[in-house]
């Protein structure tokens, strides 16, 4: 209690100072002024010391004044009635002032404590409002509680497998479990276990108790307990909010999965029925009209069956891949890739489908590496180039450039091009450009491309080229490549 010890120095100092001043001014001023000087000393102590210390100062001031300056000097006897009244008044006023000053100090301290608590609640509320994640909330909560109640302060959530984070001390763990089970505050100031040096407070949000806090405390006053309970209520609310958010996100993703399933069903009935019907028709003809069909007709039917079957295989693969990309959360295997390599492998794979070598590449050196899945990205580019080769007759260019801080890979053709309304809708599932009627598409091809682009955090847009044709541009985000030692 250093403050208390300091207070006594103030007492000594005030008495000594007042006495010296009075002594110096002794013959020139009246007793009343000397009384005032001592009073000033009492006031000083009242603002610096405890109530006891200022009371002691008051009494000692009166005695000193009496002894040193009231005639007869050197004794505690008082000669005149007037001097006696002065002394009595001095004592009364001094005690009154010291009492009031002590009250004022106490009130100021309480107000400051209240302000501190209010600020803490406000700060906690502010920080919690930004957080959605249970683990993060726990971290913030623990640090704020430790700041206020010391390093032993704990906050735990109740989970089906037990307390989280797990508590080593068995007695503390039991107390916390009891607190959660009964949803009841335990410790000093409450009706239960008031002799403990720790509060165990439940985190209650509405009807649920989501966890509990263990707060070591030295004070047992109700105001402190209410403040602790207020903190716990805030934390419980935030945790409840985080849990609701998690549930909402899970519901959303389930709805998405449902949506995918519905789209898949639509795909199966739509795009698969036609080739299947064609196969069945051809097979029936072969069976029923077996004898009447000429060899050329039979061959034609057999070729058609094979083509339709192959088309079904392509569509099945596209459908599955699109569903996987849309449904899964992390189907990609990302690593540093060189776009030059991916384009190179796409070109060599397409060699056979491009006998007249219409495909040209423009890939400058020095392009940055990108984080990508090489198989999926290769498939995306292959789809785009395949489309370009199918829907156009002229040259097809694949070009890579840096554009606006992103790596832009463009597949350009000189085909019929897309209408304004088609530039966006062409990426929707099961649509095909108006000009593409004569050529078979696999329905989902561009939808798969867009899904792959999205999964990479990239954009895929279709544009019309001046001079005719289409340009499909994939813009890949470029992060900073880690440094490589030169050798």
């Amino acid at each position, binding site marked *: 209690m250093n403050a208390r010890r300091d207070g006594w120095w103030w007492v000594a100092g005030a008495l000594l100072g007042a006495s010296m001043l009075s002594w110096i001014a002794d013959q020139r001023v009246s007793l009343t002024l000397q009384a005032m000087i001592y009073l000033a000393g009492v006031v000083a102590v009242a603002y610096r010391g405890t109530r006891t210390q200022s009371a002691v100062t008051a009494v000692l001031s009166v005695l000193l004044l009496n002894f040193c300056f009231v005639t007869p000097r050197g004794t505690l006897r008082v000669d005149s009635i007037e001097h006696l009244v002065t002394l009595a008044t001095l004592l009364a006023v001094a005690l009154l002032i010291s009492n009031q000053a002590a009250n004022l100090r106490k009130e100021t301290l309480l107000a400051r404590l209240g302000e501190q608590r209010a600020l803490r609640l406000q700060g906690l509320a502010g920080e919690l409002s930004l957080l959605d994640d249970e683990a993060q909330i726990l971290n913030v909560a623990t640090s704020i509680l430790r700041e206020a109640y010391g390093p032993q302060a704990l906050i735990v959530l109740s989970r089906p497998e037990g307390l989280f984070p797990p508590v080593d001390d068995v007695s503390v763990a039991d107390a916390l479990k009891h607190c959660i089970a009964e949803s009841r505050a335990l410790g000093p100031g409450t009706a239960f276990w008031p002799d403990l040096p720790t509060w165990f407070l439940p985190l209650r949000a509405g009807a649920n108790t989501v966890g509990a806090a263990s707060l070591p405390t030295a004070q047992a006053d109700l105001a402190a307990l209410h403040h602790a309970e207020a903190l716990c209520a805030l934390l419980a609310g935030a945790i409840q909010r985080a849990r609701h958010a998690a549930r909402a996100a899970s519901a959303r993703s389930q709805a998405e999965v449902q949506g995918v399933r519905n789209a898949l069903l639509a795909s199966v009935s739509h795009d698969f029925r036609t080739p299947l019907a064609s196969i069945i028709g051809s097979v029936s003809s072969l069976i029923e009209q077996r004898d009447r069909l000429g060899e050329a007709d039979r061959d034609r039917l057999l070729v058609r069956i094979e083509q339709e079957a192959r088309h079904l295989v392509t569509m099945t693969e596209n459908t599955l891949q699109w569903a996987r990309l849309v449904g899964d959360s992390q189907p990609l*295997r990302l*690593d*540093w*890739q*060189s776009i*030059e*390599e*991916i*384009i*190179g*492998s796409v*070109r*060599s794979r397409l060699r056979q489908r491009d006998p007249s070598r219409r495909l040209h*590449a423009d*890939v400058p*050196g020095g392009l940055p*590496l990108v984080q990508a*899945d*090489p*198989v999926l990205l*290769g498939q995306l580019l292959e789809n785009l180039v395949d489309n370009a080769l199918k829907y156009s007759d002229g040259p097809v260019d694949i070009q890579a450039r840096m554009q606006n801080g992103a790596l832009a890979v463009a597949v350009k053709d000189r085909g019929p091009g897309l209408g304004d309304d088609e530039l966006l809708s062409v990426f929707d599932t099961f649509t095909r450009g108006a000009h593409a009627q004569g050529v078979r598409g696999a329905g989902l091809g561009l939808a798969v491309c867009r899904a792959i682009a999205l999964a990479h955090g990239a954009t895929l847009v279709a544009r019309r080229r001046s001079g005719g044709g289409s340009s499909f541009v994939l813009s890949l985000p470029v992060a900073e*490549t*880690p440094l*490589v030692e030169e*050798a």
Partner: protein
Amino acid sequence: MLRALVVDDDREVRGLIASVLTVEGFEVVTAVSVSEARALLANAAPDVVILDLGLPDADGAVLLSELRERHRVPVVIVSARQDEAGKIALLDAGADDYVVKPFSVPELLARVRVALRHRGVSVAPAQTRYAVDGLEVDIECHRVVLHGAALHLTPTEFRLFARLVRTAGRVVTHRQLLADVWGPEFTEHTHYLRIYMGTLRGKIESDPAEPRFLLTEPGVGYRLADE
């Protein structure tokens, strides 16, 4: 990369065996005495040991028996001693093979491969010369020539290229390349591989965006075309 320990006090023989094994793709460590070999073995066990018998501080057979107590490393003895009894004794004592000096280098390499194969490590003979469509490589002479003009490769570029040449025609995974060229701590540093393969393509290929020699298997690794 496989590690070989060559123990021989004759500097020329030691150097010859070491360089031959290096060209073949081994990481080679040498020792001139039994005590030095012991120290190296305590540090890290090699994948194969080439052991001479006439060492300055003890007979190589001593090291052989110590090796057999603790490791299962294949040991090929290389010695000038020819007596049959000695050979039999050493083979019975645990040596995997016995090659008499002077020996032929290809034969030594083949026997090392056999010894490794018997321990379940199958090593194909490395291709150290490559000549396809104007690109000529000789790993031993450290020479790369493209259409008659010599190409200059930095040490790392050459190590990377040589690794692909040694298994020309076969795919080498990213991990294997990173481990063999940079070291086992680098198997996750894919960006190193991409950057260096990019500069190699720039130096060797006429169209790096559609390579003739340095082929990419997306998601798997790289392959040097063998035709």
